[in-house]
């Protein structure tokens, strides 16, 4: 991963956190890693524990950002989520997988799209 794209990722996640705070979520953890996967943001939305995948898109990217969370990526997020629940001994809590996409146009303005309940365990 080049430095440029890593910076883009970090700044995207910062923007995402800000957006989530604005809509009333409580950020619990960022960049949680397990052996097989990573979760960008873990937040609390009321009673829900939300696992959020942040996707950055510049104007150079092709295609729709929604299609970018593919099966293997899903599996790694799910695995990381299971690890997180197990490590922190969280039971009896409803969880959700959300996807947040940030799209930047030519002038650098960010457009955020937030998809709740983006996918399931199976």
């Amino acid at each position, binding site marked *: 991963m080049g430095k440029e794209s890593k910076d883009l990722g970090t700044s995207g996640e910062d923007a995402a956190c800000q957006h989530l705070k604005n809509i009333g979520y409580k950020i619990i953890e960022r960049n949680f890693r397990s052996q097989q996967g990573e979760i960008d943001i873990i937040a609390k939305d009321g009673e829900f524990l939300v696992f959020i995948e942040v996707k950055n898109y510049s104007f150079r990217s092709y295609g729709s950002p929604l299609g970018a969370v593919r099966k293997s990526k899903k599996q790694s997020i799910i695995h990381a*989520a299971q690890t997180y*629940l197990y490590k922190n001994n969280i039971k*009896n*809590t409803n*969880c959700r997988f959300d996807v947040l996409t940030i799209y930047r146009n030519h002038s650098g303005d960010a457009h955020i799209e937030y998809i709740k309940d983006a996918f*399931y*365990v*199976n």
Partner: protein
Amino acid sequence: MLIKLKSSALSGLEGYLVEVEVDSVKGLPGQSIVGLPDAAVRESRDRVKFAIVNSGFEFPPGYFTINLAPGDVRKEGPMYDLSIAVGMLSSSGQIKADRLNDYIFLGELALNGEVRGIAGVLPICFSAKQVGIKKVVVSVKNADEAALVQGMDIIPVKDLKETSDFLNGIKNIPPHVIDIKSLFNRVNEYEFDFNDVKGQQHAKRALEIAAAGSHNIIMVGPPGSGKTMLAKRLPSILPPLSLDEALEVTKLYSVTGLLNGKSALITSRPFRSPHHTTSNIGIIGGGRMPRPGEVSLAHHGILFLDEFPEFEREVLEVLRQPLEDAKVTVSRALASITYPAEFMLVAAMNPCPCGNYMDPVKPCICHSYKLQRYLGKLSRPLLDRIDLHIEVPRLKKEELSSQPDGEPSKEIKRRVCAARTIQEERFKGKNTHSNSRMTPKQVREFCKLENEAENILKAAILHLNMSGRSYDRILKVSRTIADLDSSETIEAKHIAEAIQYRTLDVKGGEYHV
């Protein structure tokens, strides 16, 4: 919260209850369906999700397990969608659970929440009634069909929202009722009438006998002589179905999913005419979970096989058993299912591949081996089971240019019905419905011959080299001819007419005029 609802599955023409159990735990979101679901059942997950969301409900969070009990029987088809959706909404408190247990839920869901019709509602409702269930929730599209079962509350629903309003007591849906009598007494209009057919008096007479006794018949004639035309007019002279027969036929069509869009009750006798490339499975029925084939779809009606020798040999031979037993048992690894197949076989064929064999005008150009192969398709055991063999010769020039002046179907039908009434009296309280289905014992009882008739039959056996089965068939046909004549006993003229309908018996199936 654990929710239990009832739905139903089909095994042949029998429905059996399936208990749908829905429960959820808090945790990572997801669903799994257990209880041997097939692909269509497993896909219901996605349909249910969108149906729930698009109906304005909240999709319940948590991990759902949906169990379809009994767990050792394979569940097929999309009919569990409605019960699964209601179960999930009920489990999350969006639908009241107190009345769920009274109902059976049957329906497929569209993504917009609409409840779609499913196949097999009629047999399912019949079976449900037998196990004491009184109320059924079905799609409006299946409502008429389900209401054919009397003494049940049929609740027709348009979509998932309406179902929930009904169960929550917000909306009252009165049980759907139809007037079976008026549905059944509808007069069937036939597209074709016998008075369109020019000449062919001999063939018409034979078809009348066939219709009167439900006898199998084969017509042999050159192309264009009117075999297909005659066969297509046969339904117009058949006696009407009784209500029980109509329900039986409707059940078969319901299971096959052929009822859609048509009337809820089939009131005219089926006329099936499969193409000669049809496989033996297509004729008999089959599949992983065996479905009815053409012989069953022709139950209480006509199976018309045009270009008879063009069918695969094995296709023709599989007809033998259902012709004899009036039912077929199809066994597969998953299930062994018996479907009724009491049909009347009407076959049509050319005398040779080119069609002109024995024609007085046009010469036949077939090689003898080709001819042999063509006629070899007609095995002796098969011909034995066909009661009437008739020739449909080419029309003469003067007949061709004449106006059609035959008897209208209505007249012929009147005589056929009279003959059937005599048969109904005769077989009252027995399993037999028509002369052609008499058991050997009944043949001895009801087909007593006069002396003269006996002598004619004896002479015919000597000369025509008949098998025991074709002997019985002759007696049955002569019984029908006597019935058409309103004659108590079988006279010489009746037996003589019956014998002349066995032309293909001569010389072991080799065609001979």
